[in-house]
Structure formats: C-alpha cells, structure tokens
C-alpha cells in the first residue's frame, strides 16, 4: 500500500489561515489502512483545526467526508454537489488523490494534509516500512526477493558498500543493510553464486527519470 503520515498541524493550519470554511476529505484505501487519512483521522484533524481556530477566536466551518478512494473520478464525483461551497479543500489522500481531486475540481483549492511516504507494508500493528520504489523494472528475481533499489540507502545494484556494519546501514544503526538482507536471502535459498554476477548499469528510463509514467491497457479501454 501507499504509506503516508499526517503533516504537522501547524503546517496544515497555516495553509488555511485566511479561510473561514473548509472541506476535509479522507480516503478509504491505503491511507485508511496506515491510519493517516481514513474517516477517523479526518475526525481528529477536523477537531484539531476547530480547536486551533476557536482558540484564536477565528472560528472555522468544517465539513468532513471520506471517499472510498480519491484516485478514481467516480468517487471524487460524490463531492460535486457541495465542494463549491468551500473556500478550500483539504485532502487526506496520498499525493495522487490530492492532485486528482484538484484536476477534477478546477475551481477548488485542494491542499494536502498528508506527506506521502512510500510503498510499503505493515510490519506490525502501528509500524509501516518501505519495500518498493516503483522503479518500473523489477529486479527481485536477481536479488533473492529483496529490492536493492528500495532497501539499500544508495540503491546500489552491486552492494553492499563499505559502510555496512554488523548488518546495519551506515546511515543509522536502526536501518538494516539492504544488501545484508539480499545476501542472507540468497544464502538461505542456496543461490549465493548469484551474488557474483554483476548487475549491469541500470536503465532508469522506466523509473520516474523517464518522465511521468502511464500504464495503458488498450483491451480495457472503453
């Protein structure tokens, strides 16, 4: 899933400093699961903004909505009837949702409430961590199922670098060295010989470096 985290309240409130009403829109997919932008977080943000403003003697009208997804137009359409009544909309979706809403409602000012962090997994209840960079050219078959691009701090395809210490990355003792994981996996799978194959210099054109990306399935298009 896409993992996100709420921006500091101060930042959010400063975005809407001059507004007297706001529509807060949550998203029912990834950001609900990672407890960043679901219905519950919408309620909390609304309550917090309300308090921040009441405290300053500048009350603000807040409406709360949570859509199934903000990355599909049909769901965004559900805001059509009333979005225009609000000076500003705060989207609690990932960056994709925020932009898509802005695209669909050209006259509305749509602001982000979240920092979209990464594509990741729930490591345990309340802990999420990164697994994928969406580089567009998956190499997991070469590296024992551990992604060197997402898991190595330097995205080295032929790691580890000299900074790997006790299985930890040089950037922090709390970060596991991605290459340590790759080597452990290869060794568990009995494929350590794969390590000596040099992975050639990468084609980053499938990555965002190739410009904004698109996937088209002609057979599915209407």
């Amino acid at each position, binding site marked *: 899933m896409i993992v996100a985290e709420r921006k500091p*309240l101060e930042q959010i409130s400063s975005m809407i400093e001059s507004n007297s009403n706001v529509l807060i829109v949550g998203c029912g997919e990834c950001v609900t699961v990672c407890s960043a932008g679901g219905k*519950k977080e919408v*309620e*909390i943000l609304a309550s*917090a903004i309300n*308090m*921040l403003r*009441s*405290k300053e*003697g500048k009350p603000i009208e807040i409406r709360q909505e949570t859509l199934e997804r903000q990355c599909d137009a049909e769901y965004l359409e559900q805001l059509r009837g009333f979005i225009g009544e609000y000076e500003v909309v705060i989207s609690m979706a990932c960056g994709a949702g925020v932009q898509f809403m802005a695209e669909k409602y050209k006259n509305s000012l749509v602001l982000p409430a979240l920092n979209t962090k990464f594509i990741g997994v729930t490591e345990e209840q309340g802990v999420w961590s990164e697994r994928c960079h969406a580089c567009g050219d998956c190499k997991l078959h070469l590296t024992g199922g551990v992604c060197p691009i997402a898991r190595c701090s330097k995205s080295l395809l032929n790691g580890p670098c000299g900074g790997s210490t006790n299985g930890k990355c040089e950037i922090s003792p709390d970060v596991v060295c991605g290459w340590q994981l790759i080597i452990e996996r290869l060794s568990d799978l009995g494929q350590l010989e794969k390590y000596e194959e040099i992975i050639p210099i990468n084609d980053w054109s499938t990555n965002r470096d190739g410009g904004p990306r698109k996937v088209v399935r002609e057979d599915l298009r209407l």
Partner: protein
Amino acid sequence: MRLNYPPNVKIIKVPCTGKVDVIHLLHAFERGADGVYIAGCLEGDCHFLRGNLRARKRVEYTKRLLDEIGIGGERLQMYNMSAAQGPRFAEVAREMTERIMTLGPNPIRAKNREP
C-alpha cells in the same frame, strides 16, 4: 465511601477504557472541557485483558496532539485504580482539579469569554 471530591468532576461511563477513542477526548476539549482524565483499572487487572494499556497509549498520543493544538497535553491524564480504591478516586479528582486550576481555563473557553 462518600468521600468528598470537587463537583466539577463529571463522569462518562464506558465499558472499558479500551473503548475511549482519541476523538472522544478531543471532542471534550473542543466543547470546552478544561481537563479530562481516564480512570482505568489497575494495569494487569483489565477485565478485557489489555483495554487499559491500549487506552494509555491513546492518551499519550492525544496529549501530543493537544500540545500541537496548543490546548496543552497536561490537561489530559490517565489514572489507574481499582474499584476498591475509593479514597484514591477522590484523591485523583482533587489532584486533577488542582492541576487544572493551576493551568487555568481551556484556551478555547478563555477566548470565548473575551469581550
């Protein structure tokens, strides 16, 4: 045991402190409460195994939110006591009231009172 405590303390009953949600706590402050505290069972004594431990974590999170909002996390507290600790209940009610007296009214309420 009829031990006196300040009448400003009013109780909302929940089946377990595990039921207390962040939003309930925020809501009380939003509506002008000067302080909120949760009286849960003693740690390890939760009838529902770990509801009071969940509550404590939520209280810690909400305290930080209240700090961010500028209401002040110290207006929110979690206490653990058993049903047999009447004196402790009264003591906590007084302790919390005193704490709030020192802190003054909820800033929202203070603002509202301004002419």
